[in-house]
């Protein structure tokens, strides 16, 4: 299923709504162990991410594009580096708005 717009942005709370869909997760990298990374989403919740072979995350803040698995982890397809500082509060506000009724039509 491919939608024409960008993938919906999520945080740890709306993960479950998008099982098996491609999403964007703006997050901060907490830990990387091999090909599994633990990241902190914009609402503070932690998510497990399965990295792909050629992904290289240079900055502490990244946006991961991937699919949500049944177990609420994300299988990453690619990532975008977002730099060393990021206002996560603003990000979370965007995510919440996008997923709320107010935001429908704006982001989708």
């Amino acid at each position, binding site marked *: 299923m491919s939608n024409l717009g960008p993938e919906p942005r999520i945080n740890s709370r709306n993960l479950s709504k998008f099982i098996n869909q491609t999403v964007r997760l703006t997050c901060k990298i907490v830990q990387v162990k091999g090909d599994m990374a633990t990241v902190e989403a914009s609402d503070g919740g932690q998510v497990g991410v399965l990295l792909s072979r050629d992904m290289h995350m240079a900055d502490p803040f990244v946006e991961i594009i991937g699919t949500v698995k049944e177990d609420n982890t994300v299988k990453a397809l690619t990532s975008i580096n977002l730099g060393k500082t990021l*206002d996560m*509060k*603003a990000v979370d*506000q965007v995510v919440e*708005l996008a997923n709320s*009724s*107010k935001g429908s039509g704006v982001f989708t």
Partner: protein
Amino acid sequence: MADLLDVGFIQAVFGDGEAPEGASPVLQILSVKKINSASSASSGVVDRYRAILSDGEYFGQAMLAVNLNPLIDSKEIDKFSIIKLRSYTTNAVQGRRLLILLEFDILESVYNEKIGEAVNIEHAVANGTVSRAPAGNANAAPKAEPKGRAGGAGPGPARGGARQGGGKDVGPLFPIESLSPYQNKWTIKARVSAKSEIKHWSNQRGDGKLFNVTFMDESGEIRATGFNEQCDNFYDLLEEGKVYFVSRARINIAKKQFNNVNNEYEIAFERETAIEPCDDASVPQIKYNFKRVDELADLNKDDMCDIIGVVREVHDLSSVTSKATQKPFAKRDIQIVDQSGQAVRLTLWGKQAESFAHDDSPVIAFKGVKVGDFGGRSLSMFSSATMSVNPDINEAHALRGWYDSAGRNTQFNAYTSTMAGRSDNSAPRLNELKTIGEAKDENLGMRDKTDYFTTAAVVAFIKSENFSYPACANPDGCNKKVIEDGNGTYVCDKCDKHWPEPIHRYILSMNCMDHTSSFWITAFNEVAEKLLGISANDLWKLKEGGDEQQFQSYFTKAAGRSYTFEMMAKQDSYNEQVRVRYTCRKAGIPDFVAESAYLSQQIALFNI
């Protein structure tokens, strides 16, 4: 039979002015008389009864509280009745004491003889047979202060401000911080930190004179004013630096227009006000909260502050005519420096300006000076500001030492107009941002005065022709346009100097836009340099050098960036056409974090 009555009571109350504690004396009423309304104590309509009260030894005048009137009307209380006084107060009227009966028990309603041989206490006192407190002077309020407490404990003498040493007779000591209009029985012990001259005024309502003092103690400070009569009474008594007890004055809300002392309230001296000198040196000396000269940039215009510094330069006395009153008054500028390496101008007014004769670079501490933005930052002695030359405090000694060794020879940075106000990291408040559309709709700059506003916009296009002008190279910051005079040198009209090379300064014309509208603005050197990232001079050389591509690249690179522009809009007539000219005074990097937060707030307010 005098043992029925409590002998000694009358003498105690009328003589020493001190009522015995916990007394519920048994007294006899010798006579009762109705007073006509014309007398001083009556409220005008109600009957008041006067009684002569005896304790067997002396008798004195008493008044009955109005609620007791029925007892007299019903004849329960009459001549020779014996009462046990439960609650009373005393009052001083025209130098005589009166006992006010508030509550009593009737022991014997009917009694048919006078007990004892009471003598009039007034005569005894006058003869000196009975000691008496110094008579209540004009400070005594004629109205009774009913402080009678049920249970009979004596309320103490009328608080007439009788000048007894040590302020014994006045209300308890309050810290200045706790003064409020809801209390009227207070005393403060405070030092006079500032005293003004006597000022005269006359307006349609009349004329008069007044003076102000500022009192301070450990808790805070408060301003006091004495008008007319109190002006005369207290002006000579109060001296700067000395400590006084002040009581029985009125507390009002402070008039911030005249009073910039840090207190919501202010004191007004009244006729009953009592001021007594006090020897207590425990009241602290003037408290300062010094800012360094370079910290002044953080303060806003019209803020008050304290500052200490060395006087580096004293300018001449000049005179300014006030537009409001058409009166000339003296002013003098001095330059203050401190260890921060920054210099600032401070203006003295009136007498202080005239009498300032300190040529020896003294250390001066200023309290309560107002911050202005003339020439970047400046200071002004407000009417209640004080200055203290070479004060005996640590900061002063430190300054003296520093100046004598190093400071004297240091080059100081003076505040210039380009260092206007806030530093870069204090962004303008977001709700003050206007969109370009709003600025145009509101016709900003189209009225005669200059309008200032701030807008967040994107640089759309910068004109690369005529981006600069050759300016006078005078290091003092002349910046006037110089003209090439044929010999290959450039001459400046203002400085009357020739320069081989001018310094180019920006006069950048850019088109900025936001989601509402767009406009053309002019940016001068400082702003333009920031936007383009290269000095005008260097850019000029680049252009002259022929590298057109490099030259243009600067302009294209700068476009497309967003900034928060502080704008000035003014009317200009240009070839007979009147237009609004928008000048950018400052361009700051927008604070995205704050703006996002603001936007989400706005969105939350939408009720979709």
